[in-house]
């Protein structure tokens, strides 16, 4: 039981053409795995994550397949996806504390939601109450309106409702981004707890904050300009990244204890390329300090070390791919 994404392409229609937000992305997630999807704005991570649940009007599914637990997910078909939403795939949005309808009581709203997915609310009610208790909320939350709760309580409520039907896949879209440091930690730990208790099987946590992913994710997938850059376990990404973008990104994160006087950080010069007409070859080429001739050709996303996939010619030069031709790609340094 797992998620398998194969060569997914999603584009936005605009007046000037198609913006290729997700351009040929393939990866898989095992059961019980929390995968962090990291990248900066414009890399396509939000588009990728959201497309697995709800393809907005402007988004266009160009090609590729998504398979969840062996079943094909018809992401392009809004009606067909209705059967899967909340039961198989669910999402916790950013600003989860504002995601509740202010005019319905929480219990009523959840009942409607659950019924619309074809489940019986009475069966679910017991479990709902148990989970409400688990996250530390009082039982009468079900009879309250959202504005009667504090922001943190709403956050917890939304997370419980999203996972009520035990979805196989939970997508957290920047869940921790707008939160205070202490709340962020509690939300992160709650996500892990949900996975540990089996409320959800696997998770995709989308964020730009690598430090949070280092805490909660098992694997991290780094995206750049609509394509995958690197995927490995979170320890590997943090300690031994191979892709130059990941390395530079990690090098630009301030940490407590580091001061400018001791160790000035450097950012990454330049800007990500426009996805209306993406450049040929490696998309990071313009900003990469290691770029060389071969980078004019697009690098494949291959496994260079066990469990560690990278799309970079230089990384491939330094480490022969795990199961493929020898490293002599004919590259000139």
């Amino acid at each position: 039981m797992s998620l398998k994404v194969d060569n997914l392409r999603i584009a936005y229609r605009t007046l000037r053409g198609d913006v290729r937000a997700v351009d040929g992305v393939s990866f898989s997630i095992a059961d019980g795995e929390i995968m962090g999807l990291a990248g900066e704005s414009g890399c396509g991570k939000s588009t990728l994550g959201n497309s697995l649940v709800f393809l907005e009007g402007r988004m266009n599914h160009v090609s590729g397949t998504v398979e969840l637990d062996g079943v094909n997910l018809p992401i392009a078909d809004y009606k067909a996806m209705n059967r899967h939403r909340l039961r198989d795939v669910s999402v916790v949005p950013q600003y989860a504390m504002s995601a509740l309808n202010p005019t319905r009581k929480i219990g009523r709203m959840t009942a409607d939601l659950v019924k619309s997915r074809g489940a019986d609310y009475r069966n679910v009610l017991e479990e709902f109450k148990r989970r409400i208790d688990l996250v530390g909320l009082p039982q009468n939350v079900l009879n309250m309106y959202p504005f009667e709760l504090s922001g943190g309580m709403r956050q917890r409520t939304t997370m419980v409702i999203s996972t009520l039907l035990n979805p196989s896949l939970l997508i957290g879209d920047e869940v921790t981004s707008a939160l205070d440091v202490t709340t962020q930690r509690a939300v992160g730990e709650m996500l892990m707890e949900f996975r540990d208790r089996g409320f959800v099987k696997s998770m995709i946590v989308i964020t730009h904050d690598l430090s949070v992913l280092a805490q909660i994710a098992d694997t991290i997938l780094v995206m750049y300009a609509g394509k995958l850059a690197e995927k490995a376990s979170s320890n590997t990404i943090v300690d031994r990244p191979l892709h130059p973008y990941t390395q530079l990104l990690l090098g630009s994160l301030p940490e407590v204890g580091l001061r400018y006087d001791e160790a000035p950080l450097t950012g990454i010069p330049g800007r990500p390329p426009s996805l209306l007409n993406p450049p040929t070859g490696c998309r990071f080429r313009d900003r990469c300090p290691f770029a060389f001739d071969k980078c004019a050709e697009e690098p494949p996303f291959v496994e260079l070390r066990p469990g560690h996939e990278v799309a970079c010619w230089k990384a491939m030069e330094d480490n022969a791919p795990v199961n493929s031709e020898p490293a002599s790609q004919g590259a000139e340094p």
Partner: protein
Amino acid sequence: MSVNTGPPSTPEDFAGGTSPGPTGSPVLARSVGAGGAELAAMAPSAGADGFGGGRRWEFLHFALRNPKLMIGLCVELIFVAVALFGPLLAPYSPTYHGTPGLHPSAQHLFGTTYPFGTDVFSQVLYGVRDSYVVGVLGALFAGAVGLVVGFAAGYRGGVLDEILQLFTNVMICIPQLVLLIVISAYLTTRGVLFEGIFIGVTGWPWVARAVRAQTFTLRERDFVDLARLSGRRAVSIVVKDIAPNMASYIFLVFVLLFASSMLVAVNFDFLGLGPTNGLSLGDIMNQSTLWSALDLHMWWWFIPPGAALTLMVLALYIANVGLDEVFNPKLRQT
């Protein structure tokens, strides 16, 4: 109604490199959702040149493709042409006395009146012009007063806001019709100018309220703070920073005022409180009632002016809806 309430969220507008929002309370009004910001960052140079350049082209592009706007505009322009050139093309003078009570025919397209036998078609052609004049005057005055009051109350807030709100509420409560009757009792003649100004001066409260509300929102934007930090004065900030961001809304307001002024004028004219000189569509209908056109089955006397007025106002309202769709990307049906 659309106002630039925050950073762009359509694929067509772009801001570079912003990542998802601030910590703490969600900034709903700004709605830089992750999707929006990502989208915005994806094609940084592909966007149009903002309002000043390509954004206007974008509006024009959608405007030309919006059926409501186009149809409404065309119908309205026909009537504007009638207002401008109608009196020149009228076959008869509106005061011509001929055979009364004739049915519509080739010579008298809308028949004649009773008992004086004036040509209804000619009267309607003149009447459209008069109605427009009153409409424009009313819209201008109501718009001007409403904008000033709305901006002042919305930007300053505090005591001035309280006073202006009180004033606005009092104006709402005073019935236009009663006031008009009272004032008319003291005037010997009433002109078209008077009617236009009167409608304008009594029709602004809703404008003030709406503008005040929008100003409140815009006032909180950072660029207003930046203008204050640059030592700019309040009037300058309102005129140059706040008002242009509401331009589409203000435009719509004027369109609505135009339409409603005409309707209000018809109401007054129908009751005989219209201008003592001149001949508007409402006056035609007033006369038709006075001379019992309904009982005499002279439908051609009151239906054409009524239909003309209905079409004039309806076309404006429909164009208004179309305009709203043009200005507000979220309402478009792409």
